[in-house]
Structures are given as C-alpha cells and as structure tokens.
C-alpha cells in the first residue's frame, strides 16, 4: 500500500506540473475562452480544502449538521458578491492591485504601514491553516499506510508531507512567479487549480457513491440516520451566526480566495456564472459527508474521525477506491497550499521585503523582486511545515481552520468600508484591524500558549477566554469572532470619523468607492500635477521592470497617446500616473508611490481635479464608443442603401431586359404579318390559294401575338402580387386525363407517344383549376415540342408523396444541361443573352408555371434524370380545406 500511495501521489504531482505547463502555453490560443467562466468558478472552489475533504466528516461525527455552516456562509455571500467582485476587478486592473494588502494599502492613501500590517497578520492567520493541509496529507498517508511514519520527535526524512511541501514550493515558484506584475492572471496556475477542483469533486463523488451503495445494505446505517435526525440541534444562535459570518467573510478575504477570484480573474464576464456554480459545487461536495459520518464509528471505530473517508473507502471499495480518496484529498490540500502560499508570498515580499531594497535605486531590481517573492514562498512553506511538525499535531482539522477564518475576518471592516464608505480612513483601518487581531489573539491563541507554558488551561482565572465564553453561554470561537469584529468595526468607524483625509487619501477613497463609474475604463487615473524629465521616469521603470519590458510598455503608451518620446523630453502627469501603476504592479502601491515621489516634484491634484480629469476621459471614452457605434450604424445604413440600390438597379436592368425581350418577341410575328399583308396588298393578281395561305398565316400570327401579350400580362400580375387564386376542390387525376386527351391529336400528328400513369389513390385537393391546367398545358406542350423528333415519347406520372401531390412530365428529347436547369424557369430564358434560338414558344411558359406552382406553395424543378430526356416535376401541397391558401399572396421576384 505504501508503495502504491507513493507511486500515485508522485504521478499525480507530476501530472499537475504537466497540466500547468499545458495551460500556461495553450490556454490563450486554444478554445478556452468560452470555458473561462467555468474555469474561474472551479478555481474559486479552492475554498474547499482538505478540511472539506476529510475534516467535515469528523466535524459531522462530533457535532452533527453544523459543518454545513461553513458552506452556507459563502453561499449567502454570493448574493452580494457580484457588485463587489466587479468593483474589485476594475480596481485591480487600474490600480495595479495584486493582493488584499495592496488593495487596502492603495485604498488608504497608499499607506505602507497598513500594507505591512495586512501582510504580517495574514501570514500569522493563515500559516497554521497551510500547516493543516500538510498535516492532512501526512495523516491521510498514515491512515492508509497503517503505520506511524513521522517519528515522535524531531525531523524525519520518511515523512511524505516533507516531499509534498518541497514539490509545492517548486510548483508555486514555477507557475506563480512567472511575471513581475502581481496582478496579472497566470493561465497555468488558474487552469491547474480549476483542474484540481474538478478532480477532488469527481473523486469525492465516486468514493461517496461506492460507499453509499454499500451503506444502504447495512441496518446500522438506517438506525444511524434516525439517531442523527433525532439529535437535538442545540447550537446557540450566536455560535450559529458567528460561524456563518466568518465563513462568508473568509470566503471573500482569505488570501487564496482573493488571489483566485480577483487577482487571477481576467474578465468581469467570468463573475456571473460563479455566483451559482460555486454554491452548486459546494452542495455536491457535501452530499456524502453525512453517510460517512454515520457509518464511520461503526465500521472503523479505531480511525481518527477526520479520516473516516479513507478508512470507509478502503472497507467498501478496496484499495483502489481508497487510493482515489487519497488523491482527492491530496488535490484539495495541494491546491490550497499553492494558492495560499503564492498569495502570502506576494504580500509578504511586496510589503515587508521589497521596501528594504528599493532604497537602492542604482541596481536593476527586476530579478531581485522576483527572487524575493520566491524566497518568501519558500520560507512560508518551510515555516508551515515546521509549524505542522512541532505545534499542530493534536488539533482537529476544523478547529485550526476556524481560528484562521476568525483572523482573516478582521480585515472585513476596512475592506467593506474602503469599498463603500468614502469617509473610511487609514487610521480607522489600522486601529480596527489591530484591535480586532488583539482580541482574536487573546481568545484563540494566548490560551494555547499559556497552556503550553504553564500547563494550566485556565491560567487567567475569571479572565480566561474559556471562562468568559462559558459565562455568556457561547463557545470560545463565537466569543472571539463576535467581540473582535464588534470592537474592530467600532474602532474603525470611530477613528475614521475623527480623522481628516489628506489630498491623496481623499482621491483614492473616491476612486475606490466609485470604481464602477471611474475606473471601468482600465485607465490609470491621473493624480498629480507636474512633470518630470522623461529619462528619469524611464530609468526608474527600467530599474524595476527591466529594459525590454520598459521599452515595450512605453512604446505601447506612446502609440496609444500619439507621443513621440524623442521630441517630448518631459513626461506629463498622465505618463507619471501610468508609470506609478506599472510600478505598483511590481512592488505594491506604497513603494511605487515612494519611487515616483523620488523622481517627480509632485503636487497632488485636488479630488475635484482628479474627478474632472477622470470624468473627462470617461466622457471621451463614452464619446468614442458612441461615435464608433454611430459609425457602425452609418456604415450599416450605407451598406443597406448600397444593397437596395444594387437591387433596384438589378430590377431596372431586369425590367429593361424584359422589355427588350418582349419587343423582340413581338417584332417577329409582326414582321411575318406585315410582310404577308403587304404581299397581298401589292399583288392584286395573286393566285387565290396563295392569298388564302397568307391570310391563314396572318391569322395564326395574330393568335400568337395575342397569346404572347396574354402571357406577358399574366406574368406581370403574378410578379406584382396582384394575381389571386380561386381555389376549388379539384381531382388532379381527372384534370390531367382531360388535358392529355386534348393533346393526343397533336401528339399523333407529330408521331409522338403520349402516355400517363396516374395513381388512383390521389386525394382531391384545393387548387386553382384554371391555373393548374395552364401549368399542365405548358409542360405537356413543351414536352411534346422537345421530345425526340421521331419515336418521341412523353410520359406523365402523378402520385401522392407524403403531404404533397407530385406530378412528373418526362420526355425523351435531348434534355437540359445541369447548368441551365434553374435558368429555364427564368422568363425568356430562350433568348436572354444569347443569339441561338431554341424551338419556338413565347419563352414565358415555364416562368408562369413556376409562379403558379409557388403561389400554391408547391415547388417546380427539372429533376435529375439518368435515363436521358427532360423530366419536369412539380409538387402541390395537399390542401384538405379551402382556407389554407387564402392568405397566399405571390411576392414579387427579387
């Protein structure tokens, strides 16, 4: 088992390195963009750590349902999260914010002290929590391996947690410190954390289903459920609500949460889906907690309740299932360790270490800054490991976590006040956080220390936290949370109200509170009056960002603002503000401010001036957007107009073409009439039979002219939409028979065979009888005309096809080339654009037929016919009632 665990754990860790590498290289250009909201939501699920994975079962065994509060809190927080997350996103981008310490420092006048305080207290609050994850890895290993691997005292090289810790150091440094800018999303990191969240969820669900399917066969399970249901829920309302409150606050403020939901966020658009996906994720993950908590004591009484999941997975599903549970726990723990360590490392190096080195401006600091972060990460993880090894051995997973939550919650008043209350002041923030932490320390940390030193848990007597909490009939954690937050908030408000803002503090307060309006343009707001020699600003940037990146950002800035650096040798205030933001991304707002101050003789703009400039640039931005929208509209309108004009020209062209063709078709019979009439007129001696012949011809040509004019008028009616159908119930079979009879004489005269095969089952339908007759006349007439000149044959078939009647007229003539099969339905296809004439006819028959069939909502086409000849087919929808076609109106041809 030990070997198996070591192999799969190693394989898993190797895999997440590979995954991170893949995401880092590919996420930008594979189709990941549409998946970003889901990846983002999964990354936020880093909230669910080994504590969720293992500890919740322990907690449920011990005290029933209250483990759920830790997830209900964040679920409730989601209701107010959207406006906060959106605001934070805008602030992060435009202010170069890379951590909670950066955020609070920037908000409260770019204050260095506040940044240091937040960084240090975050470290104190969260370090035990990271240790907890290391402990979970180690103990899960021990639980499955069945041996106590870490020797009671001292340092052991046999502890697998040590190696996991070192691997985590490598991972965090490799994928977390790629860029100098702290606020830049890192695809490899976010992708991997999302993957780990997915993995732990799937692992938990599989193990849960396997366990549950075996529990339901066990009577003890059902008895256990009844016992559980009857257990009175006796959690005092104060305990209940304090857990809800601190878990909701921690969900927003924990370093790892802030890192994933704000710093690593690459778009405001990611936020909405997370609002329901994250609660859903937590719900699914919690489904199986209770069954394991109920069966744990019966099936594996000797196991630590925190690790029932592993023990029961082993019992119900064998070592494979146990290994899956172990990997799930490993993924939960490692994702927390990676993100927490990265966030703490960034905060600590930016606010505590970097200020020590930036004083020396004459060396290139770019690499040193990243190196400091890496050392911070390394140091924090080693500290966490040592804490786990020497101190955190006996506490349950949940209790350490709750202490951490209570600590992080202390940032809440300064955080919310900073985002929503302009009066909130640096002094209030510092005093509030300091007092809150003191109370937290007194209730939750001091007793442990005193206990360790004196061996007396109630060393302080009446003033011992336990005694105080008991007096109030709530538990120590609730007392600590309620008191600390209450005092914290009151101090924060009182000190803020009493303090006076300086110019910069006031400006920052306004920017943060109105971030949605002022900062959504992602522009660095202009804060100063004054200029600095451009070379000074540039060398400052080079100092911190390095040569190539400085060149790049300045080029981009110059291009965006149409500036030529060679000519303008002074950097204006906008450029200076931009430089400050770039520095802030690398070294935090407080240090950036100091650095900028060292090259610029600056004078802060008043709040109204800052607002004026911002409003102006927002207005320009809005104007640009509006202009480009108008431009788009105009372009669209132009395009539409152009299209309409083209269409009109096309129509005009068609009309001209039509008139030309009509005139051609009129001239031909007219020529014959005139020539013959003149012959008769001029030749009084013409033999009687010749005269008779010419007169006959003239009459025929007149008929032809009349037909042509009738057709032209018909077509015009159809195409203008003035033609109405008069629908009657017709028997298509009978109609075809009659028309075929009329054509038999002509067919015989030409020596053609005219046959029909019509199904007797054709139902009657509503159609315009005259018009359908016209179509049949046209088609049969054409077929007889184009059939082979000797042995010509025309076959007519008709039958019902689904909801249509289908009629085919098939001749054995030359056929129509595929390219012309659609064109033949155009009017005057015969003569259009060509000089060769097809056999005679008005050239309008097929066009009219097409119009008639389309008015009946049918279709007409030349069918592919491998047997040769031409096969014209049309369909008529089967109308059983008269009304269906009433509304039909022929639309003019385009």
């Amino acid at each position, binding site marked *: 088992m030990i070997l198996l665990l070591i192999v799969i754990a190693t394989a898993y860790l190797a895999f997440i390195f590979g995954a991170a590498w893949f995401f880092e290289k590919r996420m930008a250009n594979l189709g990941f963009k549409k998946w970003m909201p889901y990846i983002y939501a999964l990354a936020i699920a880093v909230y669910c750590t080994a504590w969720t994975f293992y500890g919740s079962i322990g907690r449920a065994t011990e005290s029933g349902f209250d483990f759920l509060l830790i997830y209900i809190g964040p679920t409730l927080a989601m209701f107010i999260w959207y406006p906060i997350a959106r605001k934070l996103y805008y602030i992060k981008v435009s202010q170069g914010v890379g951590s909670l310490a950066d955020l609070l420092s920037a908000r409260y006048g770019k204050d260095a002290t506040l940044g240091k305080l937040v960084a240090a207290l975050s470290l104190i609050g969260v370090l035990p929590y990271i240790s907890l994850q290391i402990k979970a890895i180690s103990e899960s290993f021990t639980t499955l391996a069945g041996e106590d691997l870490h020797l009671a005292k001292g340092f052991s090289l046999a502890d697998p947690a040590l190696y996991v810790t070192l691997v985590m150091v490598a991972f965090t440094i490799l994928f977390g410190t790629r860029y100098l800018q702290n606020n830049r999303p890192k695809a490899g990191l976010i992708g991997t954390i999302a993957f780990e969240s997915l993995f732990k969820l799937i692992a938990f669900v599989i193990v849960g289903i396997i366990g549950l399917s075996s529990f339901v066969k066990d009577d003890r399970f059902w008895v256990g459920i009844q016992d559980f249901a009857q257990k009175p829920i006796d959690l005092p309302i104060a305990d209940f609500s304090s857990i809800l409150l601190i878990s909701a606050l921690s969900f927003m403020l924990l370093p790892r949460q802030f890192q994933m939901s704000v710093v690593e966020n690459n778009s405001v658009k990611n936020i909405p889906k997370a609002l329901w996906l994250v609660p859903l994720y937590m719900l699914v993950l919690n489904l199986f907690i209770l069954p394991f908590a109920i069966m744990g004591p019966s099936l594996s009484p000797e196991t630590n309740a925190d690790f029932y999941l592993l023990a029961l997975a082993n019992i119900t599903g064998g070592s494979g299932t146990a290994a899956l549970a172990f990997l799930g726990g490993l993924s939960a723990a490692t994702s927390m360790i990676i993100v927490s360590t990265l966030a703490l490392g960034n905060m600590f190096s930016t606010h505590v270490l970097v200020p020590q080195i930036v004083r020396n401006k004459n060396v290139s600091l770019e690499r040193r800054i990243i190196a400091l972060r890496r050392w911070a990460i390394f140091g924090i993880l080693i500290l966490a490991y040592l804490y786990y090894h020497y101190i955190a051995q006996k506490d349950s997973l949940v209790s350490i976590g709750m202490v951490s939550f209570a600590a992080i919650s202390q940032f809440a008043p300064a955080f919310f006040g900073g985002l929503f209350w302009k009066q909130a002041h640096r002094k209030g923030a510092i005093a509030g956080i300091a007092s809150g932490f003191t109370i937290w320390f007194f209730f939750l940390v001091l007793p442990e220390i005193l206990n360790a030193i004196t061996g007396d848990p109630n060393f302080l007597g009446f003033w011992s936290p336990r005694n105080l909490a008991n007096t109030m009939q709530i538990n120590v954690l609730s007392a600590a949370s309620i008191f600390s937050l209450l005092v914290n908030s009151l101090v924060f408000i009182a000190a803020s109200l009493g303090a006076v803002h300086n110019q910069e503090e006031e400006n920052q307060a306004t920017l943060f509170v109105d971030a949605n309006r002022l900062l959504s343009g992602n522009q660095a707001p202009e804060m100063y009056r004054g200029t600095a020699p451009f070379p000074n600003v540039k060398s400052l940037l080079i100092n911190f960002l390095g040569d190539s990146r400085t060149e790049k950002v300045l080029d981009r800035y110059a291009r965006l603002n149409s500036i030529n650096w060679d000519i303008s040798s002074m950097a204006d205030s906008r450029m200076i503000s931009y430089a400050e933001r770039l520095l802030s991304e690398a070294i935090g707002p407080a240090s950036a401010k100091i650095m900028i101050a060292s090259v610029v003789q600056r004078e802060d703009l008043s709040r109204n001036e800052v607002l004026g400039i911002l409003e102006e640039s927002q207005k320009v931005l809005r104007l640009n957007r509006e202009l480009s929208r108008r431009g788009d509209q105009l372009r669209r309108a132009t395009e539409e107009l152009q299209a309409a004009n083209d269409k009109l020209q096309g129509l005009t062209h068609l009309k001209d073409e039509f008139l030309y063709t009509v005139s*051609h*078709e009129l001239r031909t019979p007219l020529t014959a009439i*005139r020539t*013959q009439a*003149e012959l008769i007129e001029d030749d009084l001696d013409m033999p009687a039979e010749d005269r008779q012949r*010419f007169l006959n011809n003239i009459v025929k040509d007149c008929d032809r002219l009349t037909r042509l004019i009738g057709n032209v008028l018909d077509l015009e009616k159809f195409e203008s939409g003035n033609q109405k159908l008069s629908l009657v119930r017709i028997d298509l079979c009978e109609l075809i028979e009659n028309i075929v009879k009329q054509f038999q004489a002509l067919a015989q005269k030409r020596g053609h065979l005219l046959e029909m095969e019509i199904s007797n089952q054709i139902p009657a339908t509503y159609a315009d009888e005259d018009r359908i007759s016209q179509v049949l006349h046209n088609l049969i007439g054409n077929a007889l005309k184009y059939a082979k000149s000797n042995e010509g044959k025309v076959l007519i078939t008709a039958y019902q096809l689904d909801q249509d009647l289908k009629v085919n007229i098939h001749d054995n003539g030359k056929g129509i080339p595929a390219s012309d099969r659609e064109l033949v339905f155009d009017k005057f296809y015969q003569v259009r654009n060509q000089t*060769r004439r097809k056999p005679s006819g008005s050239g309008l028959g097929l066009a009219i037929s097409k119009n008639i069939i389309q008015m009946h909502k049918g279709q007409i086409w030349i069918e592919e016919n491998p047997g040769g000849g031409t096969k014209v087919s049309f369909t008529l929808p089967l109308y059983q009632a008269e009304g269906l076609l009433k509304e039909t109106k022929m639309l003019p041809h385009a």
Partner: protein
Amino acid sequence: MPSKILIVDDEINILMSLEYLFKRKGYEVFIARNGTEAMALADKEEPNLVLLDIMMPDVDGYEVCDYLKAKNPAIKVVFLSAKSKKADVQKGYDHGADLYLLKPFSNKELLNHVKDLS
C-alpha cells in the same frame, strides 16, 4: 442583275413570304431554315446577296455572316433581325454586314435596299 438571293430565317412564315416576294420580282431565290443549311446552300449556289436572321437554332446569323464573308468578301449580307438595341446593330456591322434592317420592315423598303446593293 438578276441576282441570286439566299434567305435565311427560322420563322417559316417570314421565310415563305420573303421567298414569294423576291421570286415575284424576278430574283433567283434559295431558302434555308437554319445556319447550317444556309452555309451548305451558299457553298453550293454561291448567291450574291443573303438576307440573314440572327437568332436561329444551332448556328446564329453572326457566325453565318462570318463564314460567308470569309469565303466570298464580295457577297452582300443584309441582317433582318428583331434585335433592336444599338449594340445589336453595331455588332451586325462589326461582323461585316452591308445592312442591318430591324424587323418589322416594309417590303418596299427591303426591295429598294436589295436593289441598291445588287
């Protein structure tokens, strides 16, 4: 004079009446109903004037005109066509026609033109 005239048109009534007209005026007349027939007949009978329709099945009037003028540059060609656009007329002359007459025309007019040309 008297000339040999070849009349080419796919419209049978026009063909027959023109044949009648020119025969009555003493011309030697040949008729063809399409381009192919016309070219064969021209080779055989060597007419000095051709009345030529343009839109015909198979070979159109332009091609027939080209063929005739290539064989015998002295041959007179009169297009009789219902194609009324300027471009059509121009095309007719471009193919070497001596005259382009738009249908319908009067018999007198046609006779006069033919007389002038022969």
